[in-house]
């Protein structure tokens, strides 16, 4: 390992830190919530379009039809949202931990499904359940 090689991990850590800081401290569009606060809504997006919004306090057990006709199984229980089953090939979304804090998300890339915790009001989603 040459001395110059250390520039790369250093640059990577600095870039990642700045990026992370920008995500945390960016002025929230509709709320004053910060990452790490407990969120109270579970927003489900399929292919970039709002699919549904659920309350994090609810007891929800739904099948979300993802892109290309494959489903994801979302369960909200005890203030946590979790994808417990999926018809996608890699099942990465199922292995991801349950989410409950603001800005946390579970992503299923093949099905284009994003489950995200949001704090406060979200006006721009069409479908609202619960």
């Amino acid at each position, binding site marked *: *390992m040459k001395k110059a090689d250390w520039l790369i991990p250093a640059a990577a850590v600095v870039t*990642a830190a700045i990026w992370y800081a920008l995500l945390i401290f960016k002025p929230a569009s509709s709320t004053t919530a910060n990452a790490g606060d407990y969120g109270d809504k579970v927003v489900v997006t399929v292919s*970039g379009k709002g699919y549904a919004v659920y309350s994090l306090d609810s007891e929800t057990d739904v099948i979300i039809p993802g892109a290309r006709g494959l489903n994801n199984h979302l369960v909200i229980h005890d203030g946590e949202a979790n994808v417990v089953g999926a018809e996608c090939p890699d099942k*990465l979304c199922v292995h991801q931990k349950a989410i409950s804090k603001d800005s946390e998300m579970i992503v299923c*890339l093949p099905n284009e499904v994003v489950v995200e915790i949001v704090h406060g009001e979200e006006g721009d989603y069409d479908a609202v359940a619960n």
Partner: protein
Amino acid sequence: MQLQTKRLARLAVFTALAMILSWIESQLPNFFPYPGMKLGLTNLVVVFSLYGTGKSDAAFINLVRIFLSGILFGNPYSIAYSLAGGVLSFASMLAFRKTGIFSVYGVSMAGGIFHNVGQILVAVVLIHNDKIFHYMPVLIVTGCITGFFIGFLSDEVLRRIKFRG
């Protein structure tokens, strides 16, 4: 003529090796359950051939293994992800290597980082959701770590195998 045959055989063996590593990696449990976080074992073959036998060999192996492993172990979408990651990663490795100030470690770490950057860009386009950019910090760091590991392995292999084209 003899050189051509030799090169053909070498490319075939390296591509086969890349496929085997691809398969091994596809059998490993997901240590990191997040899209894009992979060890990138196959990159070992690409880095090795970049240093051992030159960039045109490495580019050939990289492209062929992306399409072959996509067809065998993946689907059209996984090919899109690998292709974006693979091409961006390869371009960055060429650029970093050309500066002449980095060793195989630095070049491989750059490759690991830009591989993940490429994957995120495709994910944002395919999913139409820029929230995916939230993954960038963690994927930059993991790309650097896996790149270091691949750099280490490549360095060890390159020191032991002397290639004569």
